[in-house]
């Protein structure tokens, strides 16, 4: 039998899980990544991973996990795969445990679980407050083992430029650039799985890592892969503002009892700890008595914006609220939250065990992503699969905390075998694709590089990027107003036009990070339009997408998936029904039991 060849692009949790599954099937896999895979963005996940193991005897079930996820996502997610994910989650925890993840333990030696937002159950397994790092390392180690036994070949320090698509519209491999030699090459494959993560960089500053530009998704979109629900962007309620990055303060701080408050008098200049209880406003607990500080992220973020911008109660008149863990014992904090408290301490020089933290919402996650089917992570282009944050399947209009790690591992675990099955079903594999198909794609990408590197431009890519981030953050995050969304799109089109006149301050041929960034920037601009125009079209409020002019969820008109398509160089929107076969939609509220 012909041995298929699979490529995985991206070495975060989803990509590594897909890689392991393919290697286990005895099929050889090439793993491409911009950074050494151990440095992927999954390391930044902090709080934990959800699975209804009912380890605290609360009567938790996988159905309740499923219901919380659908309800938390405001009924926009297609339900069958979400249900399968929730049913698979306990087994995923067992697997990670067997791989040696150092999860926190109970006195009985079992895994410990904590509470997270949008649920009443202790459902979140955790390894201190660096759970993503620990999970990524466990999968990285398994991949290294397969690599040492020659089932996996890593191509680290390579950036994906485009898919190689033949005349029949079938993907036959990828075109990538070596970030040292800057050499552009094509790599044949029978199937390619994309696990290319988030898109934080289109908002300038976010909680995401530097590589999370969405460039690969955008390149694929411009080659015909549809992009779904792009307008659903999660803004995390608690992050530390910074000029280079908005550093996340995990929801687990609240899961372990952390409280969010502001002084009742915004002119109060006393140190936080000397402000008496009676003069503090615990607004989440006041407004949402049932869930309190553990309301879902979209709710908490809007509440903080309301406190700061409408009630004018930000600390000392600034855009900040207190996230307070000082009432929790040092021993508990160090055992369960040290990783994040250490970040606060290092970057601000203040010990959060002694002083309440000052936080503000930050762009964090995209619920939207590449369109995939509801069976096996296949996109609409044959041979292209997607898993992890870069696809749209699991989180609807708002993701619950600690559901991202489980969706990455579940999706990756599904995509791997699916790609193998697809590749084996092909009558003719990549080896019978004509070399001309590869050569044409390589030339097309080389020409793009040449156009960027030609010395006749005037525009600095870093400046264009900064302007893009400013306009996206101002108009396309927490509160969306149609007039402002139109303004944002006009601005992005101006930036696209200026992008055509780019001037690179580095034209050398070795390890040219400026050229690589310029390539990513072009794709970021297109994706920013998909997000902005998707938001403009959707005249309702649902989950993270909030329009004060259309404050209610509108199931009659908008209970549907946005599906953006690229047609002749233009973005077109189509819509398709959501699969609500298992749980009928009901009103979503967190001030009372659901």
């Amino acid at each position, binding site marked *: 039998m012909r041995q298929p060849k699979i490529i995985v692009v991206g070495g975060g949790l989803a990509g590594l899980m897909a890689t392991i599954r393919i290697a286990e099937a005895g099929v050889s896999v090439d793993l491409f990544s911009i950074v050494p895979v151990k*440095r992927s963005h999954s390391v930044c996940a902090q709080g934990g991973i959800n699975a209804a193991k009912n380890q605290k005897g609360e009567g938790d079930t996988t159905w309740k996990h499923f219901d919380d996820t659908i309800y938390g996502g405001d009924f926009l997610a297609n339900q069958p795969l979400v249900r399968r994910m929730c049913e698979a989650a306990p087994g995923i925890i067992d697997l990670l445990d067997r791989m*040696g993840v150092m999860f926190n*333990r109970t006195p009985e030696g079992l895994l410990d679980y904590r509470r997270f937002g949008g649920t009443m159950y202790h459902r979140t397994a955790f390894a201190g407050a660096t759970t993503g790092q620990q999970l990524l*390392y466990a999968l990285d180690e398994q991949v290294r083992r397969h690599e040492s036994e020659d089932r996996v070949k890593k191509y680290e320090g390579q950036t994906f430029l485009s898919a190689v698509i033949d005349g029949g519209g079938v993907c036959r491999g990828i075109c990538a650039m070596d970030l040292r030699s800057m050499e552009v090459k094509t790599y044949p494959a029978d199937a390619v799985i994309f696990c290319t993560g988030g898109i934080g960089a289109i908002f300038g500053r976010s909680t995401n890592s530097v590589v999370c530009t969405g460039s690969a998704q955008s390149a694929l979109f411009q080659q015909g892969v549809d992009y779904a629900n792009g307008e659903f962007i999660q803004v995390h309620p608690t992050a530390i503002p910074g000029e*280079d990055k908005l550093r996340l303060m995990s929801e687990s701080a609240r899961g372990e009892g952390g409280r969010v408050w502001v002084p009742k008098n915004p002119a109060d200049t006393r140190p936080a700890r000397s402000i008496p209880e009676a003069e503090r406003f615990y607004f989440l607990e006041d407004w949402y008595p049932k869930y309190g500080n553990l309301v879902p992220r979209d709710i908490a973020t809007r509440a903080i914006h309301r406190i700061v911008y409408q009630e004018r109660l930000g600390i000392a008149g600034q855009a900040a609220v207190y996230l307070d863990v000082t009432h929790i014992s040092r021993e508990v904090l160090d055992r369960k939250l040290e990783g994040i408290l250490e970040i606060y301490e290092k*970057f601000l020089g203040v010990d959060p065990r002694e002083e309440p933290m000052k936080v503000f919402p930050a762009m964090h996650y995209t619920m939207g992503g590449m369109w995939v089917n509801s069976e096996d992570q296949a996109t609409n282009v044959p041979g292209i699969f997607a898993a992890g944050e870069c696809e749209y399947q699991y989180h609807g209009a708002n993701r619950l905390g600690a559901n991202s790690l489980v969706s990455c591992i579940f999706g990756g675990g599904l995509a791997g075998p699916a790609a193998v099955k697809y590749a084996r079903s092909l009558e003719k594999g990549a080896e019978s694709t004509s070399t001309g198909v590869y050569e044409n794609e390589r030339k097309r990408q080389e020409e793009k590089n040449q156009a960027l590197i030609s010395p006749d431009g005037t525009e600095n890519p870093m400046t264009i990027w900064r302007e893009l981030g400013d306009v996206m953050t101002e108009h396309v995050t927490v509160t969306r107003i149609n007039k402002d969304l139109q303004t944002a799109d006009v601005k992005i089109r101006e930036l696209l036009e200026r992008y055509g006149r780019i001037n690179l301050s580095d034209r050398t041929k070795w390890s040219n990070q400026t050229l690589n960034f310029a390539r990513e920037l072009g794709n970021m601009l297109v994706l920013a339009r998909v997000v902005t125009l998707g938001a403009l079209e959707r005249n309702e409020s649902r989950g993270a997408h909030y329009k004060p002019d259309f404050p209610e969820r509108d199931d009659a008109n908008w209970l549907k998936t946005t599906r953006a398509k690229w047609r002749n160089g233009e973005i077109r929107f189509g819509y398709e029904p959501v699969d609500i076969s298992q749980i009928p939609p009901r009103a979503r509220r967190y001030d009372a039991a659901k």
Partner: protein
Amino acid sequence: MPDAKEVIVRVKRQVSPKGTPYWEEFALPWRPAMNVIICLRDIAENPVTREGQRTTPISYDSNCLEEVCGSCAMLINGKARMACSALVDKLDQPIRLEPFSKFPVVRDLAVDRQFMFESLKRVKSWIPIDGTYDLGEGPRMAPETQEKAYPLSRCISCGSCLEVCPQVNDNNKFIGAAIISQVRLFNMHPTGAMHAKERIAALMEPGGIQDCANAQNCVKACPKDIPLTESIAEMNRQAWKQALVGWLVG
């Protein structure tokens, strides 16, 4: 003393692995809460030296910017540090940035740390599970054991411990403290312990644990406060025990 509103940064540059190093100096506008990454981004947006010469942006590795991915390690004022957590206001000026000296330079401040990942392969730094199919729960573990192991599992492979180690030099390919500490981690795990012997054997190969000269620089340089010298002592004990048993039985 530089102008209080300016940040002076001196960068040791090198165009390629075989290039000759040279220095460039930059004067940047000071802002609150600046770190070394922000300095490098400022230079990228306006790559002009202090003398007014146009130059190229500086190559460097970075990703998470919160000291958990291990990418942006470099020498900052002569010390092995992560650039993201190096706050300008806490650094003496001019701020000197140099690439790590114990790894091949790729360009400017970016170095090749593949040696560390190859070493992880050498010592079989993983739990050899039978497969990813459902085999039930993992082994139970005392909270005490987890609390000892967890700090070891936070190693970000930044290479700081190798950079500061006198035993890592042109004449000696010492495997380094990070890898030794990983072996300790895997040997602590109930399943990992079943394969402790082969990891220890790998650690005793040339360039292995016997090359540690106990300078103890590693533990001071580790940005994650991993008890590296404790790990080396423990692995020394395990290695001696294994060697002794081998000799007695042998």
